[in-house]
């Protein structure tokens, strides 16, 4: 068995020595270089673009403007599987270049040049004339009557509003003796900051176009490029090499459609579009900033009588992933702490800001910031221990969600809390840090999180796999579920080796997806890779094994049911004798003069299940009150991600998610200028992504309750680690100082404001 072992990543060596080739390494040097011209107003219309000076610059091939887009093929960008039901299709509101400007940084033109320098010079030489409209940046301002309208089809800028009603909230709050706890909680706009900026290149062969892109979702991008160009989807080929991170930003069609369009305008010449970091912040995708308003009515024994959540999600200028984000958090609200009387209203609202899309956690980090900050506020108000209060109200074992049919099979929350508390010595520290005085104080805080694996039943869940046996008995494995740094290829290798019965070294997962060759699959998102791919790997490996054993029967005359494949050998199960190696069998199969066979298998699994994946964070901080600074002293995440396929990679995944959570909780925020709508800190100096020096040693602990719905007992671990970190830090600061910071991040600016308000300064 290889599953459960800390085997080395299959791509570790190449990545460590720098041999791995990414999109930019693969692009031929003959490529034209494209750069995007972005709007310098937040809302309005492009009246004219003067490209005459830019066209004169030596090396400039052509300058395109929004007025060159004659065929207007509006397309959706979200990396969701396509829905054949028009009601459920994503909003098609983008053009490759637009005359209507909806945010500062919108795509209004593009320069194509022979080299980067002339492209940059040309970009600076273009003059744009606009008609300006009023703009709106705040999500609740945008909903008011008379606010600037961003898309005429959406009155009050509301992309979507959904509601959940359970029991009778209005009646329930009349119960005598209830305590009302109310709070507003805000999360900021943040960006993924993957190491490799988005990059792609496009070229034509015949009447087909190939786009090589740094994407998480090649098959989805093929469809979107087809839609954007107005051509048959089969004429589009997307190749996805190794990528330097995605975190959801690349779960969207970013600039593949524009690059393909430019290539077609230039007769199919190779065009490369390498997005600078500054543009990545503004004109790719960001995390939805969500403002939440929670009211809880609590009985004296600490149980909830009624609860209410209103959530306002800042979509930015275009629909992208849209309402799915806040809807996921809103759906979690009644589940995490079940209560008989609940009202939830979730709104997704357009503003004239950068477009929000998918980002690690998909609405749950925002929801947990609100819910777990509020939970702490309630516990403090009721004079209850924060852990005991949570244990009392958390989703109980055996809980089944009516919609997803997800069931909490095991006592996950209590097990995770126990493990995390032990790992960080919680009880001692919590007691020690009560009622401190002085300038420098310590605190320890907890947050749990809700998450579910995959997207069933909201969306299609399918995975296809192909396995091909080589002469030596090794095999290639192909899947549509992509390696984006998380280690998926290694997990697939382990799974395949176990089911097929071959040594690890004999499994070659083809890392690169090519939509001409790779079986259909929707890509990497929703923390679903090991879960969904697991089904098709298992099915395909069993299918291949069956064919191999059938052939072995013909060679050995032994009944198939007395044969097995063990560590790459055909073994007779009755006495354990090795009859031949898989390599011998395969060589014979391929070169036989009497019975030549190409042993391969391919299958699709449709996955009509989903799985809860829960856990918690505990963080310990030291707060220097006069300095308005928080030092993170210690932090632990505990997860029940089911059976771990590779504990080392699981730990690494948790570390990465914790790091994102630390930035989200303590320092990151994309700031927009109130006067112009321009992003002010769209670079890695002014945008305070946290560094190694801001991290303590990150601890990850696991509870391994095998998930019964899963092919390998696994469930989500990609996104969960980022979900509970920020509120745990906030709650630790609360214990240390008695001051709750409801607006993330807990950075010096917000602490200065709150400490001043509370009289600590």
């Amino acid at each position, binding site marked *: 068995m290889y599953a459960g072992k800390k085997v080395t990543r299959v791509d570790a060596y190449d990545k460590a020595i720098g041999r791995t080739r990414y999109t930019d390494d693969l692009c031929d040097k003959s490529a034209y270089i494209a750069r995007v011209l972005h709007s310098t107003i937040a809302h309005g219309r492009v009246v004219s673009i003067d490209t005459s000076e830019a066209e004169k610059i030596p090396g400039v091939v052509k300058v395109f403007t929004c007025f060159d887009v004659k065929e207007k093929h509006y397309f959706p960008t979200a990396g969701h599987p396509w829905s054949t039901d028009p009601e459920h299709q994503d909003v098609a509101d983008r053009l490759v270049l637009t005359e209507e400007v909806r945010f500062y940084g919108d795509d209004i033109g593009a320069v194509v040049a022979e080299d980067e*320098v002339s492209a*940059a010079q040309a970009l600076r030489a273009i003059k744009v004339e606009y008609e300006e409209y009023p703009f709106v940046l705040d999500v609740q301002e945008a909903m008011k009557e008379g606010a600037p309208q961003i898309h005429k089809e959406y009155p009050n800028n509301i992309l979507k509003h959904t509601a959940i009603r359970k029991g009778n909230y209005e009646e329930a709050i009349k119960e005598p003796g209830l305590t009302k706890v109310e709070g507003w909680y805000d999360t900021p706009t943040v960006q993924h900051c993957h190491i490799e900026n988005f990059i792609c290149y496009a070229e034509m062969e015949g009447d087909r176009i190939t786009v090589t892109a740094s994407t998480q979702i090649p098959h989805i991008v093929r469809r979107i490029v087809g839609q954007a160009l107005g051509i048959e989807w089969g004429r589009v080929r997307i190749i996805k090499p190794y990528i330097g991170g995605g975190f959801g930003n690349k779960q969207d069609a970013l600039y593949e459609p524009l690059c393909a369009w430019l290539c077609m305008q230039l007769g199919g010449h190779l065009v490369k579009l390498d997005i600078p970091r500054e543009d990545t912040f503004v004109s790719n995708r960001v995390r939805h900033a969500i403002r939440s308003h929670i009211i809880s009515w609590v009985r004296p024994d600490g149980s909830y009588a009624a609860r209410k959540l209103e959530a306002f999600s800042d979509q930015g200028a275009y629909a992208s992933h849209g309402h799915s984000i806040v809807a996921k958090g809103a759906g979690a609200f009644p589940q995490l702490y079940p209560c008989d009387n609940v009202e939830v209203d979730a709104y997704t609202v357009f503003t004239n800001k950068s477009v929000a899309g998918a980002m690690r956690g998909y609405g749950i980090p925002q929801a947990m910031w609100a819910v777990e900050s509020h939970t702490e506020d309630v516990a403090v108000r009721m004079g209850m221990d924060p852990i005991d209060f949570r244990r009392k109200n958390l989703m109980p074992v055996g809980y089944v969600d009516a919609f997803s049919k997800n069931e909490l099979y095991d006592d996950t929350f209590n097990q995770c809390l126990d493990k995390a508390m032990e790992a960080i010595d919680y009880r001692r520290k919590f007691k020690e840090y009560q009622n401190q005085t002085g300038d420098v104080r310590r605190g320890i805080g907890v947050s749990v999180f809700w998450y579910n694996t995959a997207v069933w039943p909201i969306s299609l869940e399918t995975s296809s796999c192909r396995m091909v046996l080589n002469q030596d008995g090794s095999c290639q494995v192909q899947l549509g579920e992509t390696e984006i740094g998380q280690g998926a290829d290694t997990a697939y290798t382990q799974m395949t080796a176990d089911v097929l019965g071959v040594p690890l070294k004999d499994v070659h997962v083809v890392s690169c997806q090519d939509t001409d060759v790779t079986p259909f699959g929707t890509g990497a998102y929703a923390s679903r890779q090991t879960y969904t791919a697991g089904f098709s790997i298992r099915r395909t490996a069993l299918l291949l094994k069956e064919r191999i054993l059938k052939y072995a029967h013909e060679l050995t005359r032994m009944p198939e049911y007395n044969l097995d494949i063990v560590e790459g050998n055909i073994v007779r199960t009755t006495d354990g004798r090795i009859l031949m190696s898989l390599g011998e069998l395969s060589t014979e199969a391929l070169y036989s003069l009497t019975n030549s066979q190409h042993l391969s298998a391919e299958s699709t699994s449709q996955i009509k299940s989903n799985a809860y994946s829960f856990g918690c964070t505990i963080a310990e901080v030291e707060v220097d009150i006069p300095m308005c600074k928080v030092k993170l002293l210690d932090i632990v995440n505990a997860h029940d991600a089911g059976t771990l396929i590779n504990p080392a990679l699981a730990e690494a995944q948790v570390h990465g998610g914790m790091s994102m959570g630390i930035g989200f909780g303590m320092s990151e925020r994309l700031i927009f200028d109130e006067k112009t709508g321009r992003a*002010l800190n769209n670079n890695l100096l002014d945008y305070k992504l946290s560094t190694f020096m801001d991290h303590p040693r990150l601890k990850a602990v696991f509870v391994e309750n095998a998930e019964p719905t899963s092919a390998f007992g696994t469930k989500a671990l990609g996104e969960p680690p980022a979900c509970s970190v920020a509120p745990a830090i906030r709650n630790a600061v609360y214990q240390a100082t008695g001051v709750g910071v409801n607006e993330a991040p807990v950075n*010096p600016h917000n602490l*200065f404001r709150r400490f001043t308000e509370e009289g600590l300064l």
Partner: protein
Amino acid sequence: MYDIKALYEAESVEHAVRLLIEHPEAQIIAGGSDVLVQMREGKRAGKELVSIYGLDEMRGVSFEADGAIRIGSLTSFSHITRDPIIKEHINVLGEAVDMVGGPQIRNIGTIGGNTCNGVTSADSASTLHAWDAVVEITGPNGVRRIPIHDFYIRAGVVDLKPGEVQTAIIIPKIAYEGYHGHYIKYAMRNAMDIATTGCSVNVKLSSDKKVMEDVRIAYGVAGPVPMRAPQAEAEAKGKTVSGGNVKAFAETVLKDINPRDSWRASKEFRQHIAVVLAERALRESIRLAGGEIDE
């Protein structure tokens, strides 16, 4: 790929001066950690560059005949931090420049570039101001020396005339002998950041360690250029080493400084932090000088 019109490599200081006269539009480049970033942003795109990076004569730390410490302008931050002369006599400067960016930047970035860039947030600048540093400038008319305070004209502009190169930074003996200092960089993260406010304080105590014979304080990001806080210095000078006097000194800085309100930080926040830093940096300086604060 950078938009560079031409690159001229100087072979000596004299040659650099000549190249700058021949190419009056040219920009001097040393380590490039500021200039190349600006070129990429388009601010200095298409410029000619005169590189002085190969001039080893402008590298290193040494004593001058009168005991002044001479730091060649091309000396890198990491060199300064590890230099034995700096460690012994003005350790705070080594600590301050060790807070610049990250390790790679500290290997390539130079103290000359840090000051010639003319920005208020430079980690070396407040300490050099607080230690009465003198800037040596070599030009077509020979060598001139001016106090660092006069070198900074306004944000982003320093006193370099056509054909001039900053060749060294000098700390006179009188400025360092008997002084002990501490620098606090206040930034939003612990690495790869610029100062929200930087504060460098040093103190000279009486022989019995009871009196602050001299106190000097300088800030980065408390105004458009690095600045001293003279009223606060006057407040503390000659006073006994006591908690009350340290506090009075710290509060007086508000009379001197003029931080701006910006999206990077509010004026109120910077003022608050400036006072906290002044108190903490003086306390630490007194401790380093062997003093004990009478609370």
